[in-house]
């Protein structure tokens, strides 16, 4: 049985602006995960590691390139690398543009790295294992699937493609039609560009997104994966978790049972030190409820690697009957509610915050300190 590893979208060297100081740890973890993949490849005895684009987050890589090249070189594994997306050198990812990281001279010293640099596509043939690897760098608006003549001596035809399955209109950056997969005649297409695992096999062609091996943002289930491809007449795909961090988002709705929701945080997230949690609070809550919840969560959330607490969707709970007509507070609530009703989406947050602070100050639930910027930010 012949084995391959398929990964994509590592985005090594990415900046994580929402994580502040912890971004550095995440970058180090990305490299650790890459090392883990190499070890996995060695353990499984793979004959090639397929990287379907976005190995680097950008073409500005600094010394990171030396590190990655050393890892590749020393691994002894064959790496088939497809450049990634992006039209401009520094603002895109690791696209094959003038100044691309893949044009560096230093690659010449790494004989086990095979980079698809021919704009019309090219084939690398592993004669020992009778596998032909096909790839073409991405071009905006064009399908990245190579239409190349199949290698005559190859038993297996494996393609790498960096693009989007164009089942929705907006996926038009590097669109891949499902019929294209079916017609391609490849045994396996290693897809990249989307950061989550997905099976898009059609007809006799198996096609998978491996997703990022180290998850980069919320929206992915579980940890990042590498795909172990087994060729034994048939093509078998086995996803293997290699990433460290979970990215999770969790919602606490004040209109539901808060106690249960809080209790669930403890139950759902088994590995808080390796979890990055986006905790969204929503529903309507008054000051007491919000503060009480925040106090309760403080202890629970401290064990997480990072928590982004987002209470922007919490609407101030207002019981208008509490405030008799003819009082400022009732008049104020009336004015603000009218404004909120007709406000543009971008103004809503300001109006709601204004309403919340106004009620807080008028009812004595907020004091002078709470509208002092330094305290507010704290």
């Amino acid at each position, binding site marked *: 049985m012949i084995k391959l590893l398929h990964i994509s979208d590592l985005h090594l*060297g*990415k*900046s*994580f*602006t*929402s*994580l*502040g*100081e912890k*971004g*550095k740890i995440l*970058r180090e973890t990305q490299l650790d995960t890459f090392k883990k993949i190499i070890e996995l490849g060695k353990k499984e005895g793979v004959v090639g590691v397929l990287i379907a684009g976005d190995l680097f987050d950008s*073409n*500005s*890589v*600094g*010394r*990171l390139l030396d590190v990655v090249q050393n890892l590749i070189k020393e691994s002894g594994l064959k790496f088939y690398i497809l450049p990634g997306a992006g039209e401009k*050198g*520094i603002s895109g990812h690791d696209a094959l543009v003038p*100044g691309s990281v893949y*044009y*560096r*001279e230093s690659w010449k010293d790494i004989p086990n790295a095979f980079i698809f640099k021919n704009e019309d596509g090219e084939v690398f043939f592993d004669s020992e294992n009778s596998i032909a690897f096909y790839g073409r760098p991405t071009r905006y608006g064009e399908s990245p699937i190579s239409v190349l003549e199949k290698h005559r001596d190859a038993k297996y035809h494996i393609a790498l493609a960096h693009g989007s399955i164009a089942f929705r209109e907006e996926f038009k950056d590097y669109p891949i039609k499902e019929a294209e997969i079916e017609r391609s005649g490849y045994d396996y297409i290693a897809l990249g560009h989307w950061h989550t695992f997905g099976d898009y096999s059609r007809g006799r062609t198996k096609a998978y997104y491996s997703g990022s091996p180290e998850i980069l943002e919320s929206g992915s289930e579980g940890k990042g994966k590498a795909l172990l491809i087994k060729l034994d007449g048939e093509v078998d795909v086995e996803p293997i978790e290699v990433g460290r961090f979970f990215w999770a988002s969790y919602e606490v709705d004040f209109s539901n049972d808060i106690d249960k929701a809080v209790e669930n945080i403890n139950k759902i997230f088994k590995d808080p030190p390796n979890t990055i949690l986006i905790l969204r609070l929503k529903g309507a809550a008054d000051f007491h409820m919000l503060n009480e919840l925040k106090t309760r969560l403080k202890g629970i959330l401290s064990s997480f690697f990072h928590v982004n607490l987002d209470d922007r969707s919490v609407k101030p709970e207002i019981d208008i009957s*509490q*405030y*008799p*007509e*003819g*009082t*400022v*507070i*009732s*008049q*104020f609530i*009336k*004015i*603000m509610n009218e*404004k909120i009703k007709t406000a543009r989406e971008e103004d809503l*947050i*300001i*109006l709601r*915050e*204004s309403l919340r*602070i*106004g009620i*807080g*100050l*008028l*009812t*004595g*639930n907020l004091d*002078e300190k709470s*509208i*002092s*910027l*330094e305290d*507010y*930010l704290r």
Partner: protein
Amino acid sequence: MKIKRLKTINFRNLKNKDAYEFNSNFVVIYGPNEAGKTSILEAIVVGFFEKVDRHRTPDFKTWGKEDKPVIELTLEIDEKNIVIERNYQDGRNYMKGDGVDLQNEKKIRKRIEGLLGFNDPDTFRNLLTIKQNEMANIDTDGIQREIDTMVTGGVEGLSVMEILNLLDSKLSKERDRFKGEDGKVYDKICRELDALKEKRDGLKRDIEITESKRQQFEEINNALEVDEKSIESLQLITKWLDSFIPYREAGEKIDAVRDIEARMKVLEEDIKDTEGSVKDREERLKRYRGFKEKKKTLEEKEKELRATQKRYEEIIEKIKDISGIDSFLRNKEIPSKGDIERFKQLITQNKQMESTLESQAVSIDLEALSDIEIGFSGTTRRLSSSERQQLDIKEPLKKISIRDVANITIKNNGILIASENLNKCREQMKEIVERFGISTVDELEQRYEKKLERDQASKERDKLLEGKTVEEIKNTLDSLHSDVENIKRDTESSAEALGDVKSLEVEEFVLEEDKKRLSDKKKDLEELKIKKAKLLGQDTEEDLKRTKISQELNLAKIEVSDNEKDALMGLSIADLKKKREALSKEIENLMKRIQSNREKRVALEIELKHIPSYEELLKTEEDIGEKEEIKEKSYILLKALAVLEENLKSASEMTRDFIQTRINDLTSKYFHDLTRGKYDKVLVSMDNEVPIKVKEAGSQEFRDAVNRSLSTGAMQQLYFAIRLALMGILTGDKRLPLLLDDPFVDFDIERRKGAIEILSRLSALGYQCLLFTCHDFILQDLPEGCQVIKI
């Protein structure tokens, strides 16, 4: 809300046993002074608001009693009872009923706040209690405070003014730019963000510069590699050319020398030929001249011979040729005249006999000779049947000629006789014929005449021949003829020998031309010799060959691609030399470029040793992200505060207007009813100069109610009207109980009645009115259904 019941233990001067049940919406608590009316009022306030402090004995404990007080206040809300207990004995607070069972004071207070709309005793006192001692003067500041309280919503928060002052300190006049106290913080954040962005941009620039330098470095490196390779190849080509050019030159010289030599050879041969031709021509000319002479002689001799010939020919012409006759006559007997005559006779006889025979023969029965033809003198005819019968012909005969006739035995005798004569004649004739060998007489005559002719000719010839024989003359003539022919031939051959040469002059001209050409060719040959010498110079052809071979050996050692060789081989030596020169220049330029690129590379290598920190860039990006979030939050807060200020102001103004109108309307109504229609308008203003104005019915003029004072009674009625209005407006739908501590003492009967009517109306609307009084005349005016508790 109604106050349903009040039970107290050890509370001021109230008796422990007593429990006050308030069963109506209009309750009058009547009792003399110090009976405990004010204590009841106080106990109600304590019941609502006074949290039990177990470490303190409250000052409302009944004097002289050991035990601490207990106040139990029962409220009826929507027909359900809630009991509030302030138990100083067990140190606890309770709230029970309607599904509520609370002991936590915070929660109790929260609940009470929910019921009342406020949770402090002062508001309770200010809003819900009207005391007789407060009514002497209208406290405009107090009213102001009340209104302010109303404007803030009557809860524990800050007043609008306080909030607005606070916001003012937070926000500048130019709110959007946030230049207030917090604006400074915001500015600081912005500045920090700008600084971070500047730092990020700087780092990016540095990285971009480094990237571009690195790219430059790689480009230079590539260029150097290319240049070094191409200089190597150019040097190789140059080296190759350095051998190829002399090789080609030697080869070309050898070829040129050989060509010259070949041309020389051709020239030499040509010269030789031309010389031969000149010589030939000279000889030919000489011969021509001889031919010419000879021809002339021959022509003369020919002339001479032809004359002789002519003479002989004339002789021969004249001499009859008797050779024919001779040959005719040869071996033939010449008849005599008589022979001829004899023969003629015989012929005639024969003819006659034949004719006779013929005629006789015709009568012969020749029946048997059916097949015999008969004829004479060439004429034949078939025998008629009768003729055949006459002839005794045993044998069938095919033909029978007249000559045969003689031999035929013809029965007829006559014919036989005639035939015998004829046969004799014919024998004679046959004799002559056989003798002379002729058949006709003409032949015989001809022979005779020929003999005569020969004899005549012989005579004449002898005369002409002058002793010579004809043979001799003929021989002479033949020889002459042959001589003439010879001379003619000689002449012709001479003429032929002269060929196409039209004339000797032409021939001579041609000869001269040939000589001239010969001389030119010799000159050419000389020139070629010089050229060859020049070509060879110091070298010999062997030298050139040696050079060629040695350069060829060199060329074999230089590895230049076939394509390049092919391209170069197609060039001329001049072009090759130009190429060689161009290559030298190119190599020189390349050397310069390589040198310059090497220097640049070294410089870039040094520069690239310092690589800007990508990590720092990433960290800065992350800091920016964080700062952006802070900025956004700050922006939202400051913007929200600005929105709050603006809207709170307008809410406050709108509330103020609303309250103002309602206070004025309600106060006017109450004052109108209390004064029995004397006054119909009251203006309660926040303007301190003239805070309250009143207008009498029918008048257009408002007067200052405070400074141009009304009567005491009217002032108290005005105050009462204002308090009622404020209470009504503030408590709104809550219908809170109103506690009145003997407020009508100074009212005249009519106006007191008016006041009772108002309370009666309020109680009918659901406002519980608890009127405390020590004056029995009050009791006289009470409406039906009013509960009176006497204490």
